[in-house]
């Protein structure tokens, strides 16, 4: 049986959206898939050595908030300074309490399982990002590089 393949495009740079690419990538690798994750635009934040990912309740009516604040707290006030930091802190605390792995851990597990990370060269240039800020073993490539692998995959996800 040929080895199955999974390609993921990671485009989001917030703490909540950092989870799907790394959870699915590491799990697929554990199931025997060959996996590549292509990081583009804000998804490149997930490759930083020092992650500073946050969640924001702003513009996200589906996000459960402490004390059922999502039901009664005025939307405009979620834009107040400090709200994002507070929500991020509470989210991280909740995740730790529920035994959910940190993004750093899941990312390491992906790398240990030989999930290949590819950074979008165009976005790196566009935002003047410094590859020295990224973790090791990241490759750089463009759309054609992505399709070379994606064209042969069984599953291809855009996150």
């Amino acid at each position: 049986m040929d080895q199955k393949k999974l390609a993921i495009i990671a485009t989001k740079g917030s703490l909540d959206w950092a989870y799907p690419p790394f959870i699915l990538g590491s799990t697929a690798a554990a199931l025997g898939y060959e996996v590549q994750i292509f990081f583009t635009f804000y998804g490149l934040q997930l490759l930083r050595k020092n992650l500073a990912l946050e969640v924001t309740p702003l513009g996200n009516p589906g996000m459960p908030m402490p004390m059922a604040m999502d039901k009664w707290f005025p939307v405009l006030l979620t834009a107040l300074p400090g709200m994002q930091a507070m929500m991020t802190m509470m989210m991280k605390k909740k995740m730790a309490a529920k035994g959910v792995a940190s993004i750093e851990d899941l990312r390491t597990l992906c790398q240990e399982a030989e999930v290949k990370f590819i950074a979008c060269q165009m976005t790196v240039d566009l935002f003047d990002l410094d590859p020295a800020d990224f973790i090791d073993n990241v490759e750089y490539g463009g759309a054609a590089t992505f399709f070379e692998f994606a064209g042969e995959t069984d599953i291809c996800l855009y996150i």
Partner: protein
Amino acid sequence: MANFDQELDASGLNCPLPILRAKKTLAGLGSGQVLHIIATDPGSVKDFEAFAKQTGNELLESREEGGKFHFLIKKA
């Protein structure tokens, strides 16, 4: 509980950690050896079935006892 060669306590860990830890532990076992996994994540019941089906390792036993889930997986 049947005999096993190694035990992995994944209590308190959430998806996908029990599967990832199991995969890692199985890598250290020989063919035919049995791994006993203990988990508290209710999602792990279906996940270990799916893991066994997709990796070819056999799920010998899956049961709940005292609020914990126990699995026996035989390495292919």
